[in-house]
């Protein structure tokens, strides 16, 4: 580990902490539906959309209707992308002349991008035409992110409103977030990326005669516009197979820093926005403190493990940290940091190959996703996931002191706790259940590249990533088979919507409740004790649930690695 590496990590965290409030203020304006300076330009677009679609943005929806409209929109979007991918061969914008995708790959990819997972069973450069990248995939990068933020707004309203039936209008939330937050940032972001060396063209392959006289083909395309929203919307689906490790997606250390910041920035802002929405910004800061502690702890472990390197290679005569699967322009610190950021959030973009990380270095990304990606988390999904844990934490605190738990002015009763447990139980049920299935069935066993415990890690990581809607991979796994495409598709769908529906039910149930003023007997949810309790609950729940699976995979792998055992 180097001083410069720590400077990078602390600078990264410091910049985000400074951005939390300004971004939160902007989000809060959208949450309340207030006018922003951008309305001058984009207001007519917003109103035009509502008019054509027959939407009354002021018509508030109860949680059931909010959920129905959200689900139906996502189903239609998914069908649209499925069609674009299947018809790729006959559609324009295909300079490489690529054929349409197989049914199981199109199914998997359509679900993957709809659920903000962006798991990629395919290699972008040899599978997706320019039109598919733009029309099939880029729109999901915007709309799955906007859906996540809209859902977070709905839950915020559940906490903030008193004796109310409605939790907002889904269409208004999605449209405002897309037009006034995601799109304008992406326009500026895309220009920055192009200026830094990310291509943006409709051309395809360029033929190169290298200095040594060999032939090389270099693929260009509309890369920058997709890269921007891929990071900002915590999507993670790369234009290229190598994702943000590819020099055309992430050409410099500076673009790398900006890409990492853009993964977290909305998530940080949403914690502040939550505090503001419930009338006490310290509530937001407390959440952010718990997230930051977990994030820095994970970063420390992965950075240490990667900087320590691989003892197997040290034996052979190699110096220093682990560079397998990493790019020189980033180095070990920026690669380790990126891996923790991308899995703490449900982004899943990678600038280094997690599969080739040291055993413990790769365990942290895996564990981050297993914790439910609530350490900052995906845009929207992170904070609503975290609030489910907060409900459990006040419940536990309530059990300890023997009072009905309260959180931000709402009594948390049996219904909310049951629904929160239902949502959180989806993670272990799907992750461990499907991993077990793939570990005993023939087509599942055919997947891993690695032998020994690391092979199990590859399978475990795949289902963890899919259920967590992350999308990163231990990419040695050969996942483009009907077995994995199908099962991972189900995992992604379940991991997204089986959590969202109970979460919205909680929002509806909370909105209907009276406000309970804070009293001397209330458990304070702003101080250090609360932050410690949150961190403890998340670690204990995640640890108890997933430690056995980690012991079979990365921990066994680590013990082998330090003894020099090869597979």
């Amino acid at each position, binding site marked *: 580990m180097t001083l410069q590496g720590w400077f990078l990590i602390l600078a990264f965290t410091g910049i985000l902490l400074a951005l939390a409030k300004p971004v939160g203020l902007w989000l809060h304006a959208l949450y309340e539906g207030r006018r922003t300076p951008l309305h001058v330009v984009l207001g007519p677009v917003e109103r035009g959309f509502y008019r054509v679609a027959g939407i009354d943005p002021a018509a508030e929806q109860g949680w059931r209707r909010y959920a129905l409209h959200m689900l139906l929109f996502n189903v239609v979007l998914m069908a649209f992308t499925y069609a674009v991918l299947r018809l790729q061969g006959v559609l324009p914008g295909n300079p490489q002349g690529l054929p349409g995708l197989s049914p199981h790959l199109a199914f998997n990819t359509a679900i993957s991008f709809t659920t903000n997972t962006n798991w990629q069973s395919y290699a972008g450069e040899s599978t997706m035409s320019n039109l598919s990248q733009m029309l099939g995939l880029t729109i999901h990068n915007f709309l799955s992110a906007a859906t996540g933020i809209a859902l977070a707004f709905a839950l915020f309203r559940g906490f903030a409103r008193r004796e109310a039936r409605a939790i907002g209008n889904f269409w208004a939330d999605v449209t405002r977030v897309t037009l006034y937050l995601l799109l304008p940032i992406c326009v500026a972001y895309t*220009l920055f990326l192009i200026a830094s*060396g990310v291509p943006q063209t409709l051309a395809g*392959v360029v033929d190169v005669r290298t200095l040594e006289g060999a032939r090389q083909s*270099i693929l260009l395309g509309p890369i920058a516009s997709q890269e921007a929203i891929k990071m900002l919307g915590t999507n993670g689906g790369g234009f290229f197979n190598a994702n943000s490790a590819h020099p055309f997606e992430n050409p410099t*250390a500076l673009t790398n820093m900006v890409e990492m910041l853009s993964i977290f920035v909305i998530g940080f802002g949403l914690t502040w926005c939550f505090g503001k929405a419930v009338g006490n910004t310290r509530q937001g800061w407390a959440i952010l403190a718990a997230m930051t502690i977990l994030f820095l702890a994970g970063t420390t472990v992965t950075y240490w493990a990667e900087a320590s390197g691989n003892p197997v290679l040290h034996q052979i005569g190699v110096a*220093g940290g682990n560079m397998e699967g990493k790019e*020189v322009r980033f180095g070990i610190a920026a690669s380790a940091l990126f891996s923790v950021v991308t899995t703490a959030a449900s982004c899943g973009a990678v600038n280094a190959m997690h599969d080739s990380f040291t055993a413990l270095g790769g365990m942290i990304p895996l564990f981050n996703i297993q914790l439910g990606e609530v350490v900052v988390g995906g845009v929207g999904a992170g904070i609503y996931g975290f609030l489910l844990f907060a409900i459990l934490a006040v419940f536990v605190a309530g059990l300890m002191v023997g009072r009905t738990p309260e959180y931000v002015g709402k009594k948390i009763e049996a219904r909310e706790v049951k629904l929160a447990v239902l949502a959180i139980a989806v993670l272990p049920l799907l992750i461990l259940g499907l991993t077990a299935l793939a570990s005993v069935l023939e087509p599942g066993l055919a997947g891993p590249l690695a032998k020994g415990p690391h092979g199990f890690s590859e399978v475990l990581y795949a289902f963890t990533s899919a259920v967590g809607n992350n999308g990163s991979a*231990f990419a040695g796994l050969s996942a483009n088979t009907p077995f994995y495409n199908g099962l991972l598709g189900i995992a992604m769908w379940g991991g997204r919507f089986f959590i969202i529906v109970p979460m919205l039910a909680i929002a509806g149930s909370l909105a209907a409740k009276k406000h309970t003023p804070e009293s001397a007997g209330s458990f304070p949810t702003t101080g250090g004790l609360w932050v410690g309790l949150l961190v403890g609950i998340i670690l204990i729940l995640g640890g108890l649930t997933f430690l056995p699976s980690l012991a079979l995979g990365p921990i066994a792998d680590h013990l082998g*690695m330090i003894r020099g055992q090869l597979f």
Partner: protein
Amino acid sequence: MGKDFTSALRPAIVMTILFAALLGLGYPLAMTGIGQALFPDRANGSLIRDAGGRVIGSEMVGQAFTTGRYFQTRPSAAGKGYDGLASSGSNLAPTARALADRVRADVAKRRAEGVTGALPADLVSASGSGLDPDLSPASALAQAPRVARVRGLPLAQLRALIAERTEASVFGDPHVNVLALNRALDALPRVALPGVGRADLPSR
């Protein structure tokens, strides 16, 4: 619920079409237009051309250098090596026998060239993209004696060239772009050193 369902269907379908037009076509096409106008070189891949106008590479993308007279790039898992249509890492596990075998072979190759001591990790590890354009300064320096020998150049001159070409960044590690370094190498004026000739090239 039936009536709710049909009333939700229209906005779902219409908004899909509208957003597809705005985000799937309008946004990327507008950005392409603006990018092409403002940064034509960058937007088209930062291509490098020779005097005859032929494309010899991109500033951003690594290409294979395997002969002794050039600084060689890292091992690559992109296709058969530096395949621009098949970016990929090796995805080998830290405990994979295939990884240990590959690294051992690469270490042996460097030893045969006369490199002593522990080798810089990046020189014998495959990058994440398989298209890494850079080397660490240490990996370039480790190759300098060989390049000096093959080209008949003073070692000090190559060391100076590497130092001059090393790019530092606050947010990443120091690195040397191999294509730029090798082009600078080709541009160096030739000085004949006594007693060194082509016959002394290490055979590969």
